[in-house]
């Protein structure tokens, strides 16, 4: 961003509970998430004049939400896009506000990701309908190779072969993120697990076991972006947007799996742009978030974004390095693996709460930023949470990133 670094802020965050099922429409959930994020910012719905969302043909639209809530918008556009779109829409918001199209923008995602359209498909039960393979599906459905687990597993398998890493490294990520979920009252899986629990869980698609895969849920999430001038008057300490990259693509000779190295992901060059914009280096980062649709996607993003050297992520995560109070805490809400699945936005939400010093944990004074830092008592607020690097994932060849800082940094 360079000249726009720290000029725009995330001032509001909100979400509905992770449910399986929600028994609600995506419009109903989106209205709640948007209302909560706006209230969290200390704003009224009438203060919001821009709205945007992303979806994959599985959700409601901004005009529906604005109509339902009686909002008059100066800008409303919804995009089709997978994971890593949330960070991209933050970049849109900055550009739109800078250009004067609107002043304060809310970004939402709403999905019945469990009871409606599931990313991972539905394990067949009862009478099996005929599956129709058209478009891309002609060249994967006929091979029984359709789900993200089945697709990303191909890169993960080659990564294991190329680096000598084992699935114990995957387990480290499952264990760390689950530990964080144990400190998060909103998470759907809160029982801590050990490396052995991961290793004993059943196979989904080798090299992925059940505990390598995220928890699909029904949920809506929203964040509010505005300029720093407005941000200072609002309810919480502002969280400044320092830099990022948005849905970068690797060179792809027509097809992801024909790239020379199928586990070479888009963050590999993207991070230089993000860190350059933000004017920081990796050692300035207090904590990270990684799009953990699978344990492996976290592993490869850490490596791609330069937190460790190529081929060394397996070593890097060993011994609980990603846990709170350790070297590089990752996904402090429990992430997709243990909190629930929001298609990426919950990572931004948790990072904002941490940077405000207002993680909604078990500490009696959390809402005022007073924490015990006693993990046994359920505190999940980091002691030092000044700068965060959030890494988004769409596909092996598509990634986003958002570097944020709190008021202390």
């Amino acid at each position, binding site marked *: 961003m360079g000249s726009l670094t720290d000029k725009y802020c995330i001032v509001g965050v909100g979400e509905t509970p992770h449910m399986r099922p929600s028994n609600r429409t995506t419009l109903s959930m989106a209205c709640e998430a948007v209302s909560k994020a706006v209230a969290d910012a200390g704003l009224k719905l009438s203060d919001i004049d821009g709205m945007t969302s992303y979806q994959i043909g599985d959700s409601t639209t901004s005009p529906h939400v604005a109509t339902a809530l009686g909002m008059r918008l100066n800008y409303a556009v919804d995009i089709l896009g997978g994971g890593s779109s949330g960070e991209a829409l933050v970049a849109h918001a900055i550009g739109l506000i800078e250009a004067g199209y609107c002043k304060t923008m809310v970004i939402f995602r709403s999905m019945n990701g469990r009871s409606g359209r599931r990313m991972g*498909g539905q394990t067949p039960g009862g009478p099996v309908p005929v599956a129709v393979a058209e478009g891309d599906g002609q060249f994967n*459905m*006929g091979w029984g190779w359709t789900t993200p687990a*089945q697709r990303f597993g191909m890169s993960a398998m080659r990564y294991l072969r190329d680096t000598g890493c084992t699935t114990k490294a995957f387990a480290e990520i499952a264990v760390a993120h689950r530990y964080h979920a144990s400190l998060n009252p909103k998470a759907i899986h809160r029982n801590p697990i050990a490396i052995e629990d991961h290793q004993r869980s059943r196979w*989904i698609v080798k090299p992925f076991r059940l505990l390598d895969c995220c928890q699909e849920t029904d949920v809506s999430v929203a964040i509010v972006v505005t300029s720093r001038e407005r941000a200072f008057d609002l309810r919480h300490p502002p969280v400044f947007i320092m830099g990022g990259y948005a849905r970068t693509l690797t060179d*792809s000779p027509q097809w992801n799996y024909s790239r020379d190295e199928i586990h070479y992901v888009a963050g590999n060059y993207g991070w230089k742009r993000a860190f350059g914009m933000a004017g920081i280096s990796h050692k300035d980062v207090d904590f990270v978030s990684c799009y953990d649709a699978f344990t492996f996607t976290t592993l490869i993003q850490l490596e791609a974004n330069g937190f460790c050297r190529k081929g060394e992520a397996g070593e890097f995560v060993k011994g609980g390095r990603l846990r709170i109070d350790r070297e590089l805490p990752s996904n402090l809400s429990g992430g997709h693996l243990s909190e629930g699945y929001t298609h990426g936005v919950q990572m931004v939400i948790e990072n904002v709460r941490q940077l405000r010093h207002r993680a909604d944990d078990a500490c009696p004074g959390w809402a005022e930023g007073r924490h015990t830092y006693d993990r046994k008592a359920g505190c999940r607020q980091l002691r030092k949470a000044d700068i965060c690097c959030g890494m988004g994932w769409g596909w092996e060849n598509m990634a986003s990133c958002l570097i944020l800082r709190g008021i202390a940094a």
Partner: protein
Amino acid sequence: MPAPIDYSKLRIVPDFDTAEWWAAAREHKYLVRQCPDCGHKWFPPIFPACARCGSLKPGWFQTAGKGVIHSYVVVVQPIVGAFIGTVPYVVAIIELDDCREAGGSVTRVAGVMLDDEPEVAIGLPCEVVYEETADPRIVMPRWRVSGSAANVWRFNE
């Protein structure tokens, strides 16, 4: 060998970009796209332009259907209904022998192996075989290990 795929639960719908590919498969020919202007090859044929030179009139190249396994997964939990009785089965990415280009570019395809997991490894040579489906218009390419190699890697967990 994994149990059969229930093709009655699967309907392949060729489109304007892929109809010739499926027609060739019916005649037991394995095609990849090739650019008549620069020679670049690619797969799958859903992509209607040459990523190297931007040509919008791609042609075809008939491969011998032989290659090396570049990576694989073993599907244990079925998702596509046609594969309920097939699990566990191996899906592999195969690097085609006759599609290596001077610039280092490779063309890889994917498909379901006829071999069970213990027989499959990264680095092994394999070849295409053709399988009839419930739909007379659709013949499905499958792959089988066709020999041995010095440097192979297997997932042993």
